[in-house]
Every structure is written in C-alpha cells, then in structure tokens.
C-alpha cells in the first residue's frame, strides 16, 4: 500500500477513464455513463482508502518530511549552461491535513455529480470526456506540491469547464462560459508570473550538491532557500514580495470568488447544467481558498501577517454583500450562487484569524460548503428538471406536493444557515470564534456575524416562497424524488448530519496540519525579520 502511487492513481484515473470513453462508440450512451460512474466510484474508494491510511499525527504544511503518500521524481531536468543554471521540475505530489479533506470532497462531489449528469442527453460522449478531464484537473490541484505541476492542473480544468458550461448550459451559456474563461485566465496569468519569479528566487540543493532553482513549493516556504538577489527573495532589500503577493492573491481570489471579482459566478452558475454547478460550487471555488492557504500563506508568511486585516475585510464584505445580494434574487439558482459567495467569505475570514481555531474553521467550512452547496444546487436541479423554471415566486406550497423533497431542502437550508447539529454550524462557529480571538480583526468579525441573520433571512424567505403557502395548480402534477435523486441527496445529508454531530472525525484529520500552519505563521515574523538584517 505504502509504495503504491495512490495519489497519481486517484488523480490520473479520470484521464484514463476519458481515454476509455473516447473509444466507446457514440451510441452507447448508457455504457459511457456507467463507465464514468465506475471511474468516479473507484476514485471515491481510493480516496477512502487514502483516508484510512492517513497518519493524523503528521503536520505537513512546510515540512517535506511530514507530508504523506509523497510521490516525487525528476520530471524535467535540463542541464543548462553557466548562465541559465538548470531547469528542474519535479513531479511532486503529497498531501497533508489541509489537502486531504479536499481530496475526499473532490472524490465525493465528482461521484455525486456523475449521478446528477445522468439526465444529460446531448452529445453524451463529449460531456463525460470533458467531465473526467475536469475531475483530474481538480484533484491534481489539491495533491500537487510542485508549483509548476500545480499550475498545469490549475489551467487544465479551464477548458473542460468552458465546454461544459458552453455546450450543455442554459440560454446565455456562451456568454457565461467565455466570461468564466477570460476571468479565470486573467487570474492565472498573475499566478504564472509570480510562479516564475519565485522560481528565480528559490534554490534547492540536489543530492550531488549542486544548487538549482526550483519550483518546489515546500522549498519556497523555507527562507533559507532564497537567493540573495531574487526579486521575490526576502534577502533582497528591494524585493517585490508585496506586489507579488497581491498578484497571487488576486489570482486565487478570482476563483473564490472574492468581491469584487465575483461577477462571473452568478452567470456561470445560472447557465451551467446542474451537475456542473455542483462541481463549480462544490470543488472549484475551494481551489481559490486552498491556493491561498497552500501558496500565499506559507510562502509569504510575513506579508500575510501584514495584510491579514485586509483579507478579513474582504471576507467580511463577501459575507455581508453576498448575503444581501442573495436576499434580492428572484432566481432560485442565482440566490444559491450568491449565498455561496457569502459562505466563501467565511473561509477568508477564518483564514485571516491565523489561529488554529479559525483556520480549522476555514478548512472545515470549505468541506462543509462543498457538501451543503452541492446539495442546494442538486435541489435546484430537481425542481428545474420538473418545472423548467427557477423563479422563486412562481412556486409555492410544494411542501404538500413533494414532502420528502421539502424535507431534504429544509435540511440543506438549515445546514446552510448554520443550524447547530448540522455541519455548517460547527465550521461557522469555529470561524467566528477563531476570528474573534484575533484582536486586530475583532470588529470585522462582529460585523460579519450579521451574516448569520441575513442568511436566515434569505434562506427562510426562499423556503417560504417555494415550499410554503398554497400549492399552485399548475404544479399539482410534480412528482416527488426519484431513486437517483435519493442516491444523490441521502449521502450528502448523512455527511452533513454526521459532521454536525461529531465533527471531530474531520477536525482530527486536519488538526495537526492546522497547528503546524499556525505555528509556522506565528514564527514567520521573527524568521523573516532576522533574514533582513
């Protein structure tokens, strides 16, 4: 088990699946679908095995020795000349407590999304091929530890997403798709620049004793590895670390999406097919916050400490702003989209707290938001499949017509507004407790708690408009959930419930890593301060 490259397996399996699918004739739609299902199922199982063998004690974050399931071999190695040094890129994968929940999340969501893609009937082959490609991209981002590799995966999921929204989306799909594409590419160019700049600022000593530039993220986290003159090296008195940090942050923030870079999200969500919205909200948004946590924080700890107040500020804006916008929406799906902007704000706030409680909350919130919002979008999908409209005001009294559906919705909604006993509450509470514990952002935290109230506002209002009141006769024929929909909603509900009652299972998973991260961030000041003089 230990020497089996499980991370590569879990990451590249979907690509394999894609190849297989490409060889299945167009007509065999059912075969294609079930192949995809099988692939994602295997992926899920692999993820669970991974979890079983995961060592809770190891911290990871910036310490290569305590990462797990590491796979590392030389990928590109160009022995250059004196003036270029040598270009060296590793195929370097590994996970710690921060990435493992997201790996699990990705596996779960992909599986669920495959189920919900069952209704796709337009050029099925292409759809599932793209779907699996996307899957690889997402998974890769969470397991890559080499910046170059990370970037490749990061970009890899752009194109499939474009097609998935653009071909299988709603009426304004082309607009939404290109908007998503341009936005995210715009973001990633900053990541690219910073990546290269970091490359020229970081060296690593090889076995044969030669010093070479490296894309290895973990080396970038160790100030000892910085060159004296690199533009992003703290040793260089006039370095550009601050600017680079902002660039990088913006790059990731667009994915979160953080106000004011969020406008692609509602469009993308509204146009995307249900399954893709699920993926988008469930996993893609996390890539942004994960990026910040994995790249921005440990590589630029001292800058992070400088800017933490602003991060919290934007977190607060996201929370309040998103909630208020959600309150005004008339389109069910758009409302959910804005609500996830609001919830991602919590993640930002939690990370900004820089203490174990807050960061735990943030990571946990990533996972919970993944599951809960996935549920919400599935729920929207259910009603849209039946009624072919998403206007909140067009419904009413569905609770009498579709009681079980209403039941699941209630669960999801209350989970989203952080009702105790459901996972949403724990992460939310942790985020607030953590952030409040950090003196400088205390005020922001208190303001952010308004989100709790507003959340209840828009969710219950939507609840009332769709499910309560008297049933309109035109909906009198709507059927309650089908077996497939059960299969999608039940597991998620169980996760939400279980983690709400006994969150320790997930928290222990990330605990030591979070503590390591906190310790690292705490020492950053002294560590980097000493470097400068």
């Amino acid at each position, binding site marked *: 088990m230990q020497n089996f490259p499980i991370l590569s397996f879990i990451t590249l399996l979907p690509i394999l699946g894609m190849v297989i699918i490409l060889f299945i004739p167009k007509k065999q739609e059912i075969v294609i679908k079930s192949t995809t299902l099988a692939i994602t199922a295997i992926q899920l199982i692999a993820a669970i095995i991974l979890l079983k063998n995961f060592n809770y004690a190891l911290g990871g974050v910036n310490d290569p020795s305590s990462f797990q399931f590491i796979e590392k071999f030389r*990928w*590109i*190695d*160009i022995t*250059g*000349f*004196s*003036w*270029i040094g040598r*270009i060296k890129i590793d195929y370097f994968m590994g996970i710690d407590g921060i990435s493992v929940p997201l790996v699990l999340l990705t596996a779960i969501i992909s599986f669920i999304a495959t189920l919900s893609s069952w209704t796709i009937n337009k*050029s099925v082959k*292409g759809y599932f091929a793209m779907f699996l490609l996307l899957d690889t991209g997402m998974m890769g981002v969470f397991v890559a530890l080499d910046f170059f590799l990370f*970037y*490749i995966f990061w*970009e*890899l999921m*752009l*194109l499939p997403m*474009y*097609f998935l929204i*653009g*071909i299988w989306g709603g009426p304004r*799909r*082309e607009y939404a*798709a*290109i908007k998503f*594409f*341009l936005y995210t*590419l*715009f973001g990633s*160019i900053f990541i*690219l*620049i910073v990546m*290269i*700049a970091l*490359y*020229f600022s970081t060296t690593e000593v090889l076995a044969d004793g030669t010093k070479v530039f490296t894309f290895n993220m973990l080396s970038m986290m160790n100030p000892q590895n910085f060159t004296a003159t690199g*533009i992003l090296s703290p040793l260089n008195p006039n370095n*550009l670390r601050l600017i680079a940090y902002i660039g990088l942050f913006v790059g990731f923030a667009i994915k979160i999406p953080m106000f004011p870079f969020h406008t692609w999200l509602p469009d993308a969500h509204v146009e995307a097919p249900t399954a893709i919205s699920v993926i988008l909200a469930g996993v893609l948004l996390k890539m942004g916050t994960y990026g910040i946590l994995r790249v921005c924080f440990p590589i630029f700890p001292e800058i992070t400490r400088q800017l933490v107040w602003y991060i919290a500020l934007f977190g607060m804006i996201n929370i309040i702003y998103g909630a208020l916008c959600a309150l005004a929406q008339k389109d069910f799906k758009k409302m959910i989209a804005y609500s996830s902007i609001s919830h991602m704000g919590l993640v930002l706030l939690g990370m900004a707290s820089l203490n174990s409680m807050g960061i735990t909350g943030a990571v946990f919130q990533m996972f919970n938001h993944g599951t809960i919002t996935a549920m919400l979008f599935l729920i929207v999908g259910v009603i849209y499949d039946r009624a072919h409209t998403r206007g909140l005001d067009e419904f009413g009294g569905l609770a009498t017509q579709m009681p079980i559906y209403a039941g699941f919705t209630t669960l999801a909604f209350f989970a989203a507004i952080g009702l105790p006993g459901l996972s949403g509450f724990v992460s939310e509470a942790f985020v607030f407790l953590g952030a409040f514990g950090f003196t400088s952002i205390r005020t922001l935290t208190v303001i952010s708690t308004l989100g709790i109230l507003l959340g209840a506002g828009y969710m219950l209002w939507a609840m009332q408009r769709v499910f309560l009141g008297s049933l309109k006769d035109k909906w009198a024929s709507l059927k309650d959930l089908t077996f497939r929909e059960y299969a999608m909603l039940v597991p998620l509900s169980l996760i939400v419930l279980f983690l709400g009652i006994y969150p320790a299972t997930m928290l222990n998973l990330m605990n030591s890593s979070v503590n390591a991260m906190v310790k690292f961030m705490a020492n950053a000041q002294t560590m980097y301060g000493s470097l400068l003089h």
Partner: protein
Amino acid sequence: MNTNNLNYLVNSLYLIKPELVISAIIVLLVLVDLIMLKNKKLLPYISIAGLLIAGYFIIEHFETNSFAFSTSSSAGMLIVDPFGNFFKLLIVFASILVVLFSVTSVEIKNSLDRHGEYYALIFGMILGMMFMASASDLIVIYISLELVSLSSYVLAGFTKQSLRNSEASLKYVIYGGISSGIMLFGISIIYGITGSTNLYEINSLIQAPQVQSLTFLLAGILIFVGIGYKISAAPFHFWTPDVYEGAPIPITAYLSIASKAAGFALLIRFIKVTFIQSIDPEGFWHLLSIIDWKSFIIIISILTMTLGNFAALWQSNMKRLLAYSSIAHAGYLLLGLAVMSNEGITAILIYFVVYAFMNLGAFFVVMLIANKIGSEELDDYKGLSSSTPFLAVSLSIFLISLTGLPPTAGFIGKLYIFIALIDAKMIVVAVIALLNTVVSLYYYVKVLKHMFLDKSEKEIPAISTSYASAVLLIAILAPVLVFGIYFTPLVDLAKSSITLLGF
C-alpha cells in the same frame, strides 16, 4: 587565383552543401518538369528527397563553426554555425510539411500543369532563406532577401484564377519592393559610414566612439524596415493580412513559418553581430550605445503583439485571423530578442519549434476544411464539431496551444519567453505580454465557439479526411501535446544551437 584560394573556395562550397543540394534540386525540378509534361506526380517526391538530403547534410555539420567565402579580411560572406543550422533545419522541416500540404491542397491541384514552377519557386525560397540564415555580409543579406521575396511574390499569386490571389501578389510585390528598397538605402549609408559591408568588420569598425550616431541610427532603422517586413512586425506588417488571406493556404502557412524564421535568424544575427560589445557571464549582451536596440525592440514587440491580437478580435475569416495571430506571435518572439540575452535567444528558438508545429497544424486543418467546404469563413465553421469531430478537436488543440495554455507545447514556448523576461527583471513587459495572451484567448476561443457551441443553419455533410492527411495531422498533433508534458529534448536542442560564430 592561386591554389590555396581555390582550396578555400572548395572548402567554402563544402560548407554550404545543403544550399548546393537545394540549388541542384531546383535545376532538377525544372528539367523533370520539362521532360515529363504529363506526369507531375514525381515532383513532390523529388522535392521531399532533396529536402531530406539537405536536412541530412545540415545535421551532419550541425556543430561546425566557420566562415565561408572570406573576402579580403578574415570574416566571410556566409557563416556556418549551429544557430544558422538550427534555422536551416527548421526551414527544411517546414518545407517538407508544406510540400506535403501542397500535395493534398485542392487549390494547388487545380493548377496541375504549373506544378514544375511551383516547386521550383518553393525551392528558390528555401535557398534564399537558407542564405538569410547564414548571411554575414550586407550584400548577401540583401540578395538572399530579394531571392526569397521574388519567389514568394509569384507564389502568393500562384493560382491565378481568384481575384484575391493576384491582388495579394500585387500588394506583396509593391510593398516588398519598397521595403527592400528602403533597406538597400540603409545598407548604402552604412557602407558609406564604415566602408564595409561585412557585419564583423562593421562591428570592429564601430567600436570606436566617433561614429556619428544619428546617421547610423537612420541606417539601422532603414535596414530594420526590410527585416521587419519579413517578420511582419508592426508597423511594417500591413502586407501580412492581405497577402495571407489572398495566397493559397500552403503558401500562407509557409510564409507564416519559414520566411518568418529566416527573418528572425537574420535579425538576431544582424543585431548581435553588428552591435555587440560584450557578453557577461550571465549571458546578457551589452550592445554598443549607437542605437538603443533594446528599447526599440521592446516598443516594436509590444506594438506588434498588441496590434495583432486586438485586430484579430474582429476577423471573420480564418486565414486572416491566423494572419493577425501570427503577427501577434512575431511580437512574442521579438520579446525574446528584447531581453538581449542568450536565454532570450533560447526562448526564441524553443518558441519557433513549437510555433512551427502548432501554426502549420492550424493552417493544415484550415486547408483540409477548406478543401471540403471551400471556404475559410468563420461562419461556415459552425457545427463542425458534429460534421468532422476529428478536425474540430485537432484544430482546437492547435488553437489552445497558440493561446499558450498548458498542457500544450504553446505553453512551454511562452513559459520560456517569460522565464527569460522575468530573469531579466522585465516584469512590466511580461505582464503586458500576458495580458495580451488573455486578449488572444478570446478570438481563439471564438473559433472553438463556432465549431462546438453554435449550430449551423444549413445542414453540412460529414466531412471525411483521407488516411494520409489524418496520419500527417496526427504527426503534427503529437508533438504539440508531447512537448507540453515533456519538453527536455526541445530545450536541449535549442540550447545547443544558440552559439553564433564568434561568440
């Protein structure tokens, strides 16, 4: 004329074996064309064979570093060095592909009776370009440039039937004539100032500070006009869109790769050899301060890529769109030069290989589609995904690669350019260039959109591709993907060929 001169001549001839082969092939082609009037099938094979031989010779002497045809002084008219050989190799490679394209192209088939001229002219171009790649004397530079131009004028208008065709050639000839004229004037001034036409001699002559820089600047820029027109750098690019649109597709593809490559070889050699002062161990060049080439190139390149990308946003004709995109790429390539470092040159070489694959590939697909639906209008591309998924997918891969998204080779090309830029601390330029990439994404994706997202009004029949062309396409496609994942050989090749004679 004593013996050792003779020996020297023989040696020189020995050094330019590839060129000799090409010239021989020209003659052979003409003869064959005359002898067997009916059967033109043979011509492509001959050309391919000839190119392979030439290629072999190039590889054989890849590492050689020496002058050929020395004049009075030590320096010679031609140089044989890895740098030049790299470009010759690239040209040969491109030529092989173009010959293959021509075989499959319907446009060319239609004028079967004139195939002899066609291939002969192509080889004329090849010869000229090879000399461009290795010329170290202004005279040779001018002549080779003209040789290329003259043949390409004709080729641009080769299939005479269509309006666009002859119009293209007319514009090309006028525009080209003037540019080379201006260049020649510049050359004459330099000759006047330095009294020599050999780059090395000029270099040694102008090390002295008392050269009056304004005239020299004038001369330099006048010469740049000539080269800039070859590599279609703004503001000397105006011919490009019209000629690219007008010319037959194989020729367009050829112009976009080969003559651009030759032009770059020439430009780099001209600037480096003529104006170099010293190279520091970091590999950065320090040029003479007579002309501030660095900022000049930066301005030109940014102008070029911006103009190319933004103008491309609007194109509704595929060839024209690719024309503008190739202008934009010229801009990226110039950035590599603007770094004024060996790393920059490496980046350029890498980019050129990648660019050759993806651009030729794109043109090839466009041609295959045009063969069937007889149009390159974007609107006719609607719904191609259903009628010919294979072509659609491969075209999109090429376009994505042109955009420079991983994991395609295009990304690697750009990556190296940016590595060079950032290593030279030219962050701002890098940012501008990357923003350009974002813009370019839009029009490339517009093509994807037409093929995949839009449904066509009229029902288009399923387009079949012959096995031959399918194989060829895959052969071009494979490297685009492979180099995206594993690019060590590519970079090694580039690095081993950035040595110019004397440095």
